[in-house]
């Protein structure tokens, strides 16, 4: 293939050359793989169902103030009136799902719950992803003792079962807040993302287009940011999708253990299930069932989508 000569500088030439090489290596990987994967994804009913659940969840979360009939933290006299420690009013006019244990509108809390749950899940995933990707990229790009050190640290973290690590982190926090929960759940995922990215970068370091780039004298940073990272990210995105489901389940488990977000004003499904749901299971089972079903559905949605994505990206399934 002939590059346009003339005004192009040497650097430009090199860059173009690498892009060509990348594209060629990606023939069977890379871009066409992505397009292929996308097509397979759209044909997969599991992915469609997962995507639909997530979409519905997102819509409710984003438009919660429009959808919800009431303020989720307001206590209503008509609800507190009938509220005692051993009975919680059920559905009534204006309150389709009745009251929560403090006389607040349960339906509104369920709806706002989508928002908070999304918040916790997304942040926990994102923080874990960013830290992990950063560590993994550094390890993968630098190699040598830096790599060694980072990998030892992830070893230590992986040596503890995930929920146990989260429990420990919360126990070791000075003050339980929503953020300790988010961070604890996030930290659990850091080593996973770090190893994932590092592995994929190491594989690429040996691959043709990176070797070629190096041979052509392209700067290390450029190789990492322009060529290695983007190619590793697909795997990371798939993992992130699956992580989201785990994150909201872990947050719920922490709440159940009494180590979750202490602010029960916050309408978050895990918190609602793990604290009120379990405590008032006999008084009003709906307080457990609704958040539980919501969590199961959303976790299912993300798992379905994540698994379908992984399947679609798997070169073995290219038929």
């Amino acid at each position: 293939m002939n590059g346009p000569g003339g005004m192009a500088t040497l650097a430009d030439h090199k860059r173009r050359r690498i892009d060509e090489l990348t594209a060629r290596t990606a023939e069977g990987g890379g871009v066409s793989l992505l397009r292929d994967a996308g097509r397979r994804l759209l044909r997969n009913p599991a992915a469609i169902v997962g995507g639909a659940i997530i979409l519905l969840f997102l819509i409710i979360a984003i438009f919660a103030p429009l959808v919800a009939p009431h303020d989720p933290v307001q206590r209503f006299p008509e609800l507190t009136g009938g509220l005692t420690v051993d009975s919680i009013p059920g559905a009534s006019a204006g309150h389709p799902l009745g009251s929560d244990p403090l006389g607040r509108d349960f339906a509104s809390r369920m709806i706002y719950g989508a928002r908070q749950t999304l918040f916790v899940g997304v942040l926990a995933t994102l923080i874990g992803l960013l830290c992990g990707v950063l560590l993994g990229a550094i390890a993968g790009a630098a190699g040598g003792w830096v790599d060694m050190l980072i990998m030892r640290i992830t070893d230590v973290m992986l040596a503890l079962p995930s929920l146990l690590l989260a429990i420990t982190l919360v126990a070791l926090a000075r003050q339980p807040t929503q953020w300790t929960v988010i961070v604890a759940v996030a930290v659990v995922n850091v080593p996973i993302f770090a190893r994932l990215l590092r592995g994929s970068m190491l594989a690429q370091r040996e691959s043709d287009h990176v070797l070629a780039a190096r041979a052509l004298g392209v700067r290390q940073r450029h190789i990492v940011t322009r060529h290695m990272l983007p190619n590793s990210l697909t795997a990371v995105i798939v993992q992130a999708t699956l992580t989201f489901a785990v994150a909201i389940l872990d947050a719920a488990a922490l709440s159940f253990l009494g180590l979750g977000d202490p602010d029960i004003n916050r309408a978050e499904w895990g918190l609602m299930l793990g604290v009120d749901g379990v405590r008032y299971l006999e008084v009003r089972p709906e307080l457990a069932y609704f958040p539980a079903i919501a969590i199961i559905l959303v976790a299912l949605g993300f798992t379905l989508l994540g698994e379908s994505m992984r399947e679609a990206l798997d070169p073995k399934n290219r038929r």
Partner: protein
Amino acid sequence: MVRVVLRRLSQLGVTLIALMTLIFFWLRSLPGGPVDALLGERATPQTRETLTRALGYDQPIWVQYGRFLRNVVTGDFGNSIRTGEPVADVISRAFPATVELALAAIVIAVGLGIPLGYLAARHHGRLLDNATIVVTLVGISVPIFFLGYLLKDWLTQGTHLFPPSGRISTGVENTGVTGFFVLDGLLTREWDASADALWHLILPAVTLATIPLAIIVRITRAGVLDVLDEDYVRTADAKGLRNATIRKRHVLRNALLPVVTTIGLQTGTLLAGAVLTEKVYNWGGLGTLITDSISGSRDYPVLQALILLAAVVFIVVNLLVDLSYAVIDPRVRVR
């Protein structure tokens, strides 16, 4: 092989020392802690002072660290704040309980998971397969403490099919031998005790098995599907071997290789799940111990030892899995 084991064990040592140091200094920097935990609402300031002195918290931190390290090296993790017993005693009592529960869960997960996964693969793309996939996905998505509560609610209340909590009925005599109640009953011929312990074990084990079961079904299914596509299965077919032989000798054996790894990885899930399951069923194992030593009591000596134990178990189990892999898969053996 020996070199690999030695290297892994030395890595374990480094990991543990790093972990312990980290935990030690972190714990000392926290508010509250042992002094608070040992004293109720009624302590006078003088008592608080006496206690601080008695525990040596008035000494410089590096002196405390030195003492801590010396103790740990000699295997002394101190006493539980909550019960005053040596941590080693507390843990060695809880350990068999959790291992019994975890083993039962593994037995269920493997015993049901492999056949189900195999069946699903055999019915690839058909109803049974799809149903299995959906059920396992839901299984992975259910918060297991919630599942535990539901099972408990349905099967222990009103119907009294199972006992709601604990490891053995009050008043049933069992002589402690191993700490595994079911096994103890068999060893001492206290059949009642053994049956009763088993009866208590079922619900918690089922609850704990949910996630590993779902995962094993999926891994087995994927493994079988992969293997069914392998050339050597076609070879076996071309030999005219009977279906059963092919299934057992050529398909399952190879398909189960990844399952073995998965079982190792599930140790983590099981330990984490045990925390939730044991709380639901008041099981009195390591999981309960972890919750108890954090929530409400901040029993740091126990917590410290438990974290180390979890790390050791996790690493050792993974080492064992690697080794067993080497035994099962001849390709790994030579390397």
